[in-house]
């Protein structure tokens, strides 16, 4: 219940709605109504009619509201697992429902129902509207509008997941397993997990705007157990994104198998680094976890609006070297955190959080944007129709710096490289953040000398930002599947980084 925030590479595991077609049809007519509604969109997607939706909206706004919305969602998840050489477990799940929200100033009334009958939805609308105490303007739309979405087709799939049968997945799972098994004679077991998801989302705002789209998501996970004598080591690697089945090519399967086995075998030789403060090099890609924890959460506007973030009142201040530019973007195609519109119907965009070392913007949902008198950044996200939206990260990354990876490594006399991670966490008010290194390297005298593993890193956000003394020109986004947790809600995110040197962080090692 308390505010714990963490980022974890979780193995969330949880088939086809006949006639379920892909996203919003674009067939414009008129400036305000560029995207015309399909013949009967609510019936097509949720088995209800437009009149029902309007009646529910009227009930929701009856007591008055600053704004509010209906968030319809239908999610279908499928997973398949191969273990001990048997593809012997599959799962499927469907969750559908509508979340109903009324906002007045800082107050939110919320209800949801999984039963999409007029009676059930009106009852939920009355529950949500009970927050209103009759002192604001009644809101209810006479007519629905279908506004144009600025960024579209960020993740339009050639074949939607609902049209992919389980038999299309089996050969890929089998192939990944046999590739991993063949990589090294010490490999004892390989477990492969496939997961895909297709989400239909429809946001109807109290002022009558309707946004809808299909949001795909998938992940392929490879876990390896290797044995050498009495010693056993295990590790895993995964590939994820708003991707379709065509993304999982033989080449990608080969890379994933190679990575999972390589990272496992390296654990046999891994040691613990010395304990204490030292320079930490963050390898390009997954190390974006640094930004997520040290910077990102602290710049979510809700924490700043109520003054609980270490970054509150620091907007416009110089917080890092000139070469540091950090972006949170909803519009990176096929990224796990990509969104054409956020879960409130606001257009997504590319938001510069830190520009040339200066704090440039918070991430806003509608509530915080109204509070600060700015436009929402399209950062209002929720786990599902069961949850209220709040400002969240999407895809967080840092742009290229002026150095090279080799220069950075050569500059460190005694330190470590962090390469792969399992999880991280931050304390918003104190600014202390952590992340857990699964695989890394020891650096001695400017050279990589030995592998390390299982090391927790702790630092302080503002301090670590100031201590970013070098950044290379090799920025890349991570390909793994990250889920960010905040106030009990998990949302998919992505992250990236060039190779970066933080001159001083606390390293959880042994024998100082």
């Amino acid at each position: 219940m308390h505010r714990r925030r963490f980022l974890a590479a979780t193995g969330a595991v949880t088939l086809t709605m006949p006639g379920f077609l892909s996203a919003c049809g674009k067939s414009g007519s008129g400036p305000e109504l560029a995207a015309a509604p399909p013949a009967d969109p609510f019936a097509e997607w949720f088995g209800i009619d437009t009149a029902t939706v309007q009646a529910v909206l009227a009930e929701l706004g009856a007591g008055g509201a600053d704004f509010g919305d209906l968030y319809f969602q239908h999610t279908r998840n499928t997973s398949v697992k191969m273990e001990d050489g048997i593809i012997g477990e599959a799962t499927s799940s469907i969750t559908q429902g509508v979340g109903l929200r009324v906002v007045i100033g800082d107050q939110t009334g919320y209800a949801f129902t999984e039963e999409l009958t007029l009676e059930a939805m009106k009852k939920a609308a009355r529950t949500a509207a009970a927050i209103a105490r009759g002192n604001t303007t009644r809101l209810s739309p006479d007519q629905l509008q279908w506004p144009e979405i600025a960024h579209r087709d960020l993740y339009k799939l050639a074949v939607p997941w609902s049209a992919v049968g389980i038999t299309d997945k089996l050969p890929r799972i089998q192939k990944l397993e046999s590739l991993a098994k063949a990589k090294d004679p010490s490999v004892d077991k390989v477990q492969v997990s496939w997961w895909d998801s297709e989400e239909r989302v429809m946001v109807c705002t109290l002022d009558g705007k309707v946004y809808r789209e299909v949001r795909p998501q998938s992940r392929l996970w490879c876990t390896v157990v290797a044995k050498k004598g009495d010693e056993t080591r295990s590790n895993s690697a995964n590939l994820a994104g708003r991707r379709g089945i065509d993304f999982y090519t033989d080449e990608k399967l080969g890379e994933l198998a190679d990575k999972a086995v390589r990272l496992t075998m390296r654990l046999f030789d891994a040691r613990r680094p010395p304990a204490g403060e030292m320079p930490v090099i963050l390898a390009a890609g997954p190390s974006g976890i640094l930004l997520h924890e040290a910077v990102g959460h602290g710049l979510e506007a809700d924490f700043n609006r109520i003054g609980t973030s270490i970054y509150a009142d620091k907007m416009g201040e110089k917080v890092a070297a000139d070469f540091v530019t950090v972006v949170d973007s909803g519009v990176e195609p096929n990224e796990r955190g990509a969104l054409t519109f956020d879960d409130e119907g606001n257009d997504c965009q590319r938001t510069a959080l830190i520009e040339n070392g200066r704090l440039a913007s918070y991430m806003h949902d509608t509530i915080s944007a109204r509070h600060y008198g700015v436009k929402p950044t399209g950062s209002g996200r929720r786990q599902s129709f069961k949850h209220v939206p709040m400002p969240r990260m999407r895809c967080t990354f840092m742009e290229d710096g002026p150095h090279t990876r080799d220069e950075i490594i050569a500059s460190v006399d005694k330190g470590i490289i962090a390469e792969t991670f399992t999880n991280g966490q931050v304390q918003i008010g104190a600014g202390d953040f952590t992340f857990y290194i699964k695989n890394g390297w020891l650096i001695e005298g400017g050279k990589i000398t030995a592998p390390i593993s299982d090391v927790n890193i702790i630092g302080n956000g503002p301090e670590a930002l100031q201590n970013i003394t070098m950044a290379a020109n090799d920025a890349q986004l991570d390909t793994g599947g990250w889920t960010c947790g905040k106030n009990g809600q998990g949302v998919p995110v992505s992250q990236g980084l060039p190779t970066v040197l933080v001159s001083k962080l606390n390293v959880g090692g042994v024998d100082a």
Partner: protein
Amino acid sequence: MPDPSSLLLERATAAVELAKTAGAAHVHASASQARNVEYKLRDGILEKVQEDTSRSVSLSLYVDGRYSRHSTSDLRAASLKAFVDEAVAMTRVLAPDPDRMLPPAELYPSGEAPELDVVDTGVPSLDRDARMARLQAMQSGLTGHEDVISWTAGISDSESFSAAVNTNGLSGTHHATSAWCGAEVTLQDPNGARPEDWFWGGGHHLKSMPDAEEVARRCLSQARARIGSAKGPTAQTTMIVDPRSSGRLIARLLGPASARSIQQGRSFWADSVGQKLFSEKLSLTDAPLLKGGHNSRPYDGEGLASRALPIVENGVVKNVYVDSYYGRKLGMTPTTGSRSNLQWVGGGRDLAAILADIDDAIYVTSWLGGNADGTTGDFSFGLRGHRITKGEMGPPIGEMNVTGNLIDLFAALTEVGDDGWPYSSSYSPTLVFDGVQFSGA
């Protein structure tokens, strides 16, 4: 809500019939329904009111020697039938697995349902006024303090019902209520930081919730104890873990203590039954029938009847968590596949007595991040707390890590408190470990 148990039993039974009609040989089905209400008061404003009812049906299917699991919240008759038909069809294309079968019927509950004391009829009759009264009582303890930047108080209550049936004779229902309240507070530290802390408590009964006054007092005192926090030292010394935080260590220790992890080669508990792995001070029992216990239950997710299960006795491993599938693969008798409540054998002293009597130690009040490798037991966790010197508590420290191996750590357990944390199913007490490696400034 009116008791829907018989409706849920019918719903689960109907789902079993649908799956059998579609071609499943064996089926386990469960149906559940829950009502949740949550109120949140932030800095004097009623910031959020949420009320909802959710329901779902879950199925495990055994089709032609093949296995799959499914759940849905779309319970309209036509949707449900289409969902089940497709689930059965999907199962047919998997590989057969001879170890997949329903657990033997003699392991299911029989006779009268155990009295678990997990229902309080006062919970579903809570109304807006009662919830607001509690929030306002917390508010009065949290307001009027100059160092408070922001506070949030909340109350959250629920009532849940479930039913489970299978084609091997299982039929059971479960009903529970819960009520929790708590708060979190953020303070201004003169050095610019904004330390925060929380206190939440509750359980199945209204009386399980802590006093509003206690919530406010503990939030404030815990957060104030963080004012002026400095970087901790690099040192090898004794570690004392607060009951509120020791549950996290126990979760890491027990995480791989399952037949599944062992069979998959990812557990340091492999071949440990009968072995002395840990300190004699460690005795742990899984207690699913504990009266009023947070995770008390008549049967587990597979329908195995609940019984007390000793996990560790005086450092010797007695049992691990064995579900029927991985148990069959390993040739082990099923115990239960998942943790319920933990019962401890304490050494007679509480945290205060232990702290007062220690020469040199790091007292851990909370963790920040970190992880452990279930295969090797290697761990590294971030932490905050205080240095204790000759029984005296020093200023707050943080931004430090503790690193080691879980087997070594629990072999070096020197004392277990008798002060189990009441607000978590692990009921974890104060734990004391010798010779622990800390990394700090």
